């Protein structure tokens, strides 16, 4: 081996940095595929069967529940309540949900939306 720095030494360093840049870009691609395995499950308090929608395609879901009507929006793999005539509007204020396990609830209307996934959940923590 040479004993003083040579221009060739930059090559391994460049490979490391380029590879890390490339790997950092990958999550942008994998996020899109995460939506494919995620679903929004809409459940009703009044006993209606729950409905499941995929997060991969954008859509608007109008819901009529008793005296309340609301509009649920699926956009870019995220679910939100766009419109609702419920008194407190907490469901609208919750904003967009996309992570597995997150929920949107409209208590007056008795509607809840939960994100579920077909992919097994990852490990929360690891000690050792």
């Amino acid at each position, binding site marked *: *081996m*040479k*004993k*003083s*720095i*040579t221009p*060739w*030494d*930059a*090559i*391994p*360093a460049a*490979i*490391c*940095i380029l*590879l*890390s*840049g490339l*790997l*950092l870009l*990958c*999550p942008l691609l*994998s996020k899109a595929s995460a939506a494919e395995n995620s679903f929004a499950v809409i459940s009703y308090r009044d006993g209606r069967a729950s409905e499941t929608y995929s997060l991969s395609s954008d859509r608007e879901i109008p819901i009529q529940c008793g005296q309340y009507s609301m509009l649920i929006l699926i956009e870019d793999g995220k679910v939100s309540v766009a419109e609702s005539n419920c008194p407190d509007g907490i469901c609208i204020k919750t904003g967009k949900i996309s992570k597995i396990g997150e929920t949107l609830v409209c208590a007056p209307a008795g509607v809840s939306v939960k994100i579920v996934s077909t992919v097994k959940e*990852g*490990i929360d923590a*690891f000690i*050792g």
Partner: protein
Amino acid sequence: MRSLDNNAITRRLTSDGLLLGVALVLSYLEYLLPLNLLIPLPGMKLGLGQLAVTVSFFFAGKKDAALVSCIRVLIMGLLFGSATSLYFSACGAFLSFCGLFIGALFKKRLSYIGLGILCAGLHNAGQCFAAATLFGTGVLLTYLPVLLIASAVFGGLGGWIMNIIAGRLEIITSEKRHG
């Protein structure tokens, strides 16, 4: 002739033992250094133990280096680590050792700095691979980029130290041969 052979064996045993001792002390030193307080990234290390393995590889022999590397990982794992950390280090050390072979192919061009970065990068790739087998492939995407940049810095730092050590060691080993 037999005593000469014995001499060579004894010399090899002694130098390997010495190098292993250096490797362990450097690993322990690294274990003591609170580097994680400065840069809070788990798994980030200076890679001082690798210095001893590199010296073994180029000044004692490939087999000796493999031995030093294996036993260092085993002893450090048993003394200070757990089963998982042993698994992580073993994967890292194996790939890092492959890095020494790859680096030695380009020994006319690369200095120890390039070699250090190469080994550090492969070491971290090995550790991330080990993590991926335990926690799923997400680790590869989220944590490997960070570790790769760290390996470019710390591998280069180790290589810089190695450049200095190698010059000194060549003087010592040539004196031993001629004097």
